[in-house]
């Protein structure tokens, strides 16, 4: 089992933001965390990456995350943050090589092998032509490709994605998610992602965990979790679920019916 979380709780500034959450994630699987803003999705990702203290237990390939040590965690888990910090004058190659950091000594320098790892990560993401570009000159989609390449260069077996497509247009969103899906298919990468686009969540993840108020509300396959009733209850949104064998699942927002009284006032 890649990941096994039990009764996980996280408090930030003594305020509990995640309570009693549990899930399992098999090697090669893709678990999508969904839920309204502030539900605790990002916090769970941070706990898995060992970046915040948690109560309960998070076991990664059998080892408790809190006990592994930061560098060892970084060799197993790569994080793509929601809003990556982009040093604009850094070249893409230099940036992707940063992903090799957990494999170097404390102040070690990247060698030719690390440069090759970075270049092949970029090539894998169809970004070989970007190597010498500066990050500040990239489009949103290209930038996200560089960030993903850094995560791939990290050579980790678990990839954490925090809203990986939030700033991208629909084409770039699809490209990025397809790249992640192909990494998963080719390299046996396991993916844990927080996603706010429910259609994407339903189409790419094979299991979903619905969070609200820091607590687990539903878990299961996309068909089990993405229901009109659950989405109305936890997101306050009227939607229609469209699903067929050919296109997969899609969550279509509906304009709520306007009541006559409200329309007048």
């Amino acid at each position, binding site marked *: 089992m890649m990941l096994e979380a039990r009764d996980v709780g996280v408090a930030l500034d003594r305020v509990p933001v995640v309570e009693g959450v549990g899930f399992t994630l098999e090697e090669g699987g893709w678990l999508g965390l969904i839920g309204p803003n502030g539900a605790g999705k990002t916090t769970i990702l941070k706990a898995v990456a060992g970046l915040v203290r948690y109560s309960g237990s998070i076991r990664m390939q059998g080892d408790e995350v809190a006990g592994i040590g930061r560098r060892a965690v970084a*060799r197993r888990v790569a994080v793509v943050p929601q809003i990556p910090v982009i040093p604009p004058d850094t070249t893409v190659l230099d940036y992707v090589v940063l992903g090799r950091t957990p494999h170097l000594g404390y102040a070690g320098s990247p060698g030719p092998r690390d440069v090759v790892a970075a270049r092949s990560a970029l090539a894998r993401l169809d970004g070989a032509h970007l190597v010498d570009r500066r990050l500040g000159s990239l489009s949103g989609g290209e930038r996200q490709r560089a960030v993903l390449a850094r995560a791939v260069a990290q050579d980790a077996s678990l990839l954490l994605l925090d809203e990986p497509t939030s700033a991208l247009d629909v084409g770039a969103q699809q490209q990025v998610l397809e790249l992640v899906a192909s990494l998963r298919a080719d390299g046996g990468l396991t993916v844990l992602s927080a996603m706010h686009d429910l259609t994407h969540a339903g189409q790419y993840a094979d299991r979903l965990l619905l969070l609200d108020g820091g607590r687990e509300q539903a878990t299961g396959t996309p068909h089990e979790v993405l229901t009109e009733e659950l989405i109305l209850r936890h997101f306050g949104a009227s939607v229609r679920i469209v699903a067929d064998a050919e296109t997969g699942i899609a969550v279509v927002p509906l304009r709520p019916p306007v009541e006559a009284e409200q329309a007048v006032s």
Partner: protein
Amino acid sequence: MTSAGGLRARFPVRQGRALRGVSLRWALAAGVFVVVAALLGLALGPVDLGIVAVAREVLSHVPFLGVQSSFSETEDAILWELRAPRVVLGLLVGAMLASAGAAYQGVFRNPLADPYLLGAAAGAGLGATIVIAYDVGGDGGLDLRPLAAFAGATLGVAVAYLLGRSVGGRETTTLILAGVTVAAFFTALQTYVQQRSADTVQEVYSWILGQLETSGWTDVLIVLPYVVVSALVLLWHRRLLDVLAVGDDEAASLGVPVARVRLLVVAAATLGTAAAVAFSGLIAFVGIIVPHAVRLMAGTSYRVVLPLSLAFGAGFLVLMDLVSRTAVAPAQLPIGVVTAFLGAPFFAVVLRTTRTVGP
């Protein structure tokens, strides 16, 4: 363990060139700059020794070269007892201030950060002012100014660091605000002490504006170990400073012990700076303009910025000291005035002729 690493075999790419560090061109430029600055600093002054003659004299001390010196005993004394210690002190102080500034800008991700911002200057100023105003140690003929300035600078940054940590914010902004607070408090104390003893105001003022007058090699030998150790620690961390450029959280997710790196770099830069200002006074601006000029011209990676700041800072301060002691000879201008007066326009030109870059 299955992992993305397995992709490498299936998607071979040709071996690329290694990452760019300091290019040969810049390494040569930095070397030439330092040597020329040092030779000018040694040769010029009230007595013009001549650059070629100085070079011959220096080389005559290198075995197996067979170079003969043309110096008289007096010229020899001027060179080795008066100018050389001052030039070497200038090299050390300049290298220290510039590399410490670069390192601070890296750990705080703030283009205006340097040890002065966290209270090093205010603390050193307070220490030196107390010694001058109350004539501490004056009877024994012992100059306690360097020691007091060193203690004050270290204390200032330590208090700022502890204050920033105790507030608990992980944001670097908290630390900088703590530094500004401590600096304001120390400056207030320093001004109070200074005003209370009006007869020493002149002396305090000239110390604060900086000078490189030495009492010979002793001062240089005291500063040397601090600068060497500090510079080595900073250079050792140059790649980690690049990692910190992606922020504390991402650096941590890449396995970097962020708090420890920051503490080590701040401690090294602060101790080195404290030792430098103890003998040079508060030379402003070097820690800001030298690293930024390097970034604008040679690249923004700390693999480039740190070593080049070290070299260019060293040469830059020697040249500024040369101006400070020759421009209005036989009087001397405070070197802090010269670094700002000549450094600011130079930096403005660099800024205008290159692209804009961040820290």
